[in-house]
């Protein structure tokens, strides 16, 4: 990789970013002239909008796609693509530090080149964005408009002085980071996931507010890149809603890597002090003040609903976003919503899945339901934490008896070979059956491993059937099969065993 020095601290940082803009929002772009009503007008060119526009166009629909910023949305520009790219570099440094435990030789002096890590991230971001360039979309038959979209009535949208008529519209405007209400935070300055990736120097001391997925991923990555990280979480554990054992393992991993973990801790005030930022942390009755260089916060996401003229179109919304029914229809039957602007689960993959539902329902009289989706999710810390389906507590609250088959990763041969034996596979079944209700996987590659369970749930396979799926040996995904094996062993009841023993005894005669 060629090394270029970049000093700029705001986007675009380097030539990769300039390329990103050139393909994602070309300067001197000329919007098309609308020519009759569209089958589908899509507002927002993030994962949901792109998926819907492409699917509809591929099926022969006349489609308009409107974007005010860069094509790609949060995912490419400020979301999981830059963050997971950076995580890879962070993991590399962690492995270098741990080289001895892998039978290697730990370098005597390990220098973290933060600029280089960020440049790699920008290169990757630019490369992935190419698939969604403006030119590509036009070539796919999509009429692409840049500008602020605004509903002018029940079936019209205006953009950059043009009025677009539609039979159906999709609002896929996404969400932006929500700022926690901490007095002084805005004045003192902070980084969100939208500005974090413009950093050119690693902050020495970093306070991360919020121990959800984003907070934990950011804290771990920056810690491994050499920052002294303090992670403050209001709740008693990280990843609220996740299983406590998963959160426990993550807590231990963060602490072991050197993140200063502050649970049950609220940041109550922030102020500037010279070049530093002082933050007051409240835990129970006690307040302590810490001094840091930067503060990162990304607690929650706020849906982008302002300025769209939703009132003019009769589309209801509140602080949680646009209101949709199970078919993703808004209160205006011509208008649908998909992705972060309306969904509780704000992930790229749910945005794309919901967009596919919209294309079916809006254009082809489909009756596909959001609630029928099997949605996995994953937090990309090390180990990763992936989940699909029901949690045991939710099942029990609904009166469903649950039993969990647990395999420890330290019993999975490949995980031991890889030095990645932290974590577990837990598959939850309805007690007395092998019907899979859900699963949680904590493992270095949990996001890859969970897919087998998602597939099983989606296709109605039971845990017994998972035991019959042959996995190449050795693989870490063997852990999934081993949960099936554990289930099968419990089926060898004493009466069954007596019967087989009798049969085998007779066979010896």
């Amino acid at each position, binding site marked *: 990789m060629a090394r270029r020095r970049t000093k700029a601290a705001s986007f675009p940082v380097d030539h990769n970013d300039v390329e990103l803009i050139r393909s994602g929002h070309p300067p001197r772009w000329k919007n098309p002239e609308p020519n009759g009503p569209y089958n589908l007008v899509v507002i927002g060119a993030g994962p949901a909008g792109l998926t819907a526009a492409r699917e509809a166009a591929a099926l022969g629909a006349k489609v308009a796609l409107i974007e005010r910023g860069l094509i790609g949305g949060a995912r490419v520009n400020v979301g999981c693509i830059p963050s997971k790219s950076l995580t890879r570099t962070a993991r590399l440094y962690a492995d270098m530090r741990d080289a001895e435990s892998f039978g290697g030789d730990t370098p005597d002096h390990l220098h973290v080149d933060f600029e280089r890590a960020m440049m790699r991230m920008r290169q990757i971001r630019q490369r992935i964005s190419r698939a969604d360039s403006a030119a590509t979309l036009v070539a796919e038959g999509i009429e692409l408009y840049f500008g602020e979209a605004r509903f002018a009535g029940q079936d019209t949208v205006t953009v950059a002085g043009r009025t677009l008529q539609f039979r159906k519209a999709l609002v896929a405007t996404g969400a932006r980071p929500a700022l926690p209400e901490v007095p002084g935070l805005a004045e003192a300055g902070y980084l969100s996931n939208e500005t974090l990736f413009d950093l050119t120097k690693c902050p020495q001391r970093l306070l991360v507010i919020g121990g959800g997925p984003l907070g934990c991923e950011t804290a771990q990555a920056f810690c491994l890149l050499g920052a002294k990280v303090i992670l403050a979480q209001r709740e008693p554990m990280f990843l609220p809603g996740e299983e*406590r054992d998963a959160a426990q393992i993550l807590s231990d991993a963060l602490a072991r890597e050197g993140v200063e973990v502050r649970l049950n801790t609220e940041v109550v005030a922030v102020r500037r002090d010279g070049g530093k930022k002082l933050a007051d942390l*409240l835990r*129970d*009755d006690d307040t302590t003040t810490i001094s840091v260089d930067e503060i990162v916060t990304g607690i929650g996401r706020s849906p982008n609903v302002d300025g769209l003229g939703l009132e003019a179109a009769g589309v209801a919304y509140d602080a949680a976003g646009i209101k949709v029914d199970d078919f993703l229809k808004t209160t205006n039957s011509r208008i649908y919503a998909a992705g972060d602007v309306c969904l509780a689960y704000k992930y790229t993959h749910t945005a794309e899945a919901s967009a596919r539902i919209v294309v079916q329902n809006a254009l082809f009289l489909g009756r596909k339901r959001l609630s029928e989706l099997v949605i996995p999710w994953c937090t990309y810390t090390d180990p990763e934490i992936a989940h699909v389906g029901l949690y045991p*507590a939710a099942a029990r*609250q609904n009166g469903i008896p649950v039993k*969990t088959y*647990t395999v420890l990763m*330290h019993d999975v041969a490949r995980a031991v070979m890889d030095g990645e034996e932290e974590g577990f596979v837990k598959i939850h079944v309805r*007690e007395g059956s092998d019907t899979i209700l859900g699963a949680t996987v904590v493992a270095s590659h949990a996001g890859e491993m969970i897919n087998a369970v998602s597939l099983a749930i989606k296709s109605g396979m039971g845990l017994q059937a998972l035991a019959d799926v042959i996995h190449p040996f050795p693989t870490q995904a063997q852990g999934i099969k081993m949960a099936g094996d554990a289930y099968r062993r419990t089926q060898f009841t004493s009466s069954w065993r007596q019967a087989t023993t009798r049969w085998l005894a007779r066979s010896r005669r």
Partner: protein
Amino acid sequence: MHRLPRAEPATLSDDELLDRYQRAAFGYFLDHVNPDNGLVADTSRPNSPASIAVVGFALSCYPIGVERGWMTREAAVALTLAALRFFAISPQGNGDEVTGHKGFYYHFLDMRTGLRVWRCELSMVDTALLIAGMLVASAYFCADTDEETEIRQLAEALYRRVDWRWAQGSSPTLRQGWKPKSGFLHYGWEGYNEATILYVLSMAAPDSPTSDDSYEAWTATYQWENIYGYDVLYGGPLFMHQFSHAWIDFAGIRDAFMREKDSDYFENSRRSTHLHRDYARHNPYGFDGYSENLWGLSAGDGPGGFRASVERRRHRFSGYAARGAPFGPDDGTIAPWSYPASLPFAPDICLAALRHLGDRFPEVIENFRLPSGFNPTLANRRKFGRNGWVSEGHYGLDQGIAAMMIENHRSRLVWELMRSNPHILRGLRKAGFSGGWLSEPASPAGGGDGA
């Protein structure tokens, strides 16, 4: 208390060995009690405050001392009364300079004044352990003397005045703690743990019981798992499978959850004990010493908060913490008092472990009294000696659970006393327990309600 002459553990019979360990554990309370107010130090370290839970264990252990001839009934009555009288007159309220609030008590108290120290929390579960000790005293001291009558009356009054309903906050489950400025602590307290006795006592309270849905709401967070081939209601640290069991014999009685799973909590503790042993055999992090006879992760003292590489593996060591298996945290620190504390559930493997400890790590044990924890992985590292890190002194909780569980294993004394207690019976039934000894006709012995 005079020290026993040193004996070679290997030459002792099982019962002799247990007797030594039990007597040593029991001795902690006589060594560290303030006879003026009955408060007992949390640890044997200099300037340790009292812990209300340790007082609960002490009150439960005095009857054992009397029965075993380790103290006179008069001395036991005197210490019991000192504690009950102290709590009865101690200041309550939501301000400073108090001992408790709403009938609950702060976790740590000054040994002399009995006032809150360390800005600690008002503790629901520790209050429950204290009250459980009071109820043991009221069941055991059933003589028709002025002093023993006073014990029964005070125990009843102190139990009745606890405002359990308040401790639910705005939720059906009980809160873990409370502080004057911040109110209820919102610590996650989900899943099975040591709190069963808290729920039983709170539901049975005559005056301010928790709402009837509290126990069910708590058990809704339980997770039934098949781990290493055992079907268990999971609780990571072993103490979760021991503390409530020191007072209540859960063998054969079942609530709705255990009826659904066709098991009981005693059996669950047995399996969990075996699970800890299996975990130590797996020893995924490669800690020194772990084996089928050296196991037991629990809440207890630890070597301190630091990160270190041992044998090219990076570990993070902790101070006082709840360690658990198989999901951790695990820093190689063993809680050896787990063996007597799990004795009734799995006597064979616990005795084997206790003997192994005496053979392999004799210097960790001080006159049969077990430390809170030790860490052989740290042997000859940092400033630690050849046994690794060994917790300094002793913790009252560890000694109390050891003395009680050895007694339950030997004579079932505490279990039998509590079976006769009407509050415990009522609480268990309100929580939905039935079957086993709960279905048997009530025994006429004991005088729980002091009436």
